[in-house]
């Protein structure tokens, strides 16, 4: 069984300040982890993915995430928020090397204020 818990349903930051979106996972096997972003009325877009290579993963638009097995965490960060980052973010887990389905978290809505 696998699951993800996104610890915050809503995060608000000022433009230019750091972003931290928290995700904890649970998986019986070696996990693959993803972060997806969903802008209003648009499809989900992959930000980054971890598939058992480097634990620090860099994605698009300046985002990165670090896989910490000891903490079962995969938090998403960005040094400086931009207004265009305002969106819904989903942490996703699956089992590495299989056709196992993706399991999505409930999402974190990121608000960026001036």
């Amino acid at each position, binding site marked *: 069984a696998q699951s993800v818990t996104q610890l915050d349903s809503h995060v608000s930051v000022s433009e230019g300040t750091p972003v931290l979106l928290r995700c904890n996972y649970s998986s019986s096997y070696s996990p*693959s982890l993803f972060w*997806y972003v969903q802008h209003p*009325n*648009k*499809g*989900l*877009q*992959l930000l980054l*993915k971890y*598939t058992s290579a480097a634990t620090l993963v860099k994605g698009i638009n300046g985002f990165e995430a670090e896989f910490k097995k000891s903490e079962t965490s995969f938090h998403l960060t960005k040094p400086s928020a931009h207004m265009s980052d305002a969106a819904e973010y*989903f942490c*996703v887990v*699956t*089992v*590495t*090397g*299989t*056709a*196992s*389905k*993706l399991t*999505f*978290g*409930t*999402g974190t809505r990121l608000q960026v204020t001036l």
Partner: protein
Amino acid sequence: EAGVAQSPRYKIIEKRQSVAFWCNPISGHATLYWYQQILGQGPKLLIQFQNNGVVDDSQLPKDRFSAERLKGVDSTLKIQPAKLEDSAVYLCASSSQGAAGGTQYFGPGTRLTVL
């Protein structure tokens, strides 16, 4: 390259009516997925196809939902009859490999409202 196409983008029906959604995946992608995203929740997989065969339909309410991918390319998802709780965004995604091996690319979704 063209992305995943879905139609219609919006649909409003009354309960007990039927509805169908269409998806055209990225060219060459063997794996196609249908997800249901209820407001305030993450997407939930309904069905996964590998070419024209079903890989996983364990969360598809088979008494009212059906899906097909006859030629291994585009796919339709049908609901008959619809219930109020079916109001959601229905997302289609495709990948060149299975879930863990390949990135899933999502379409814009179809927003269904059941009155």
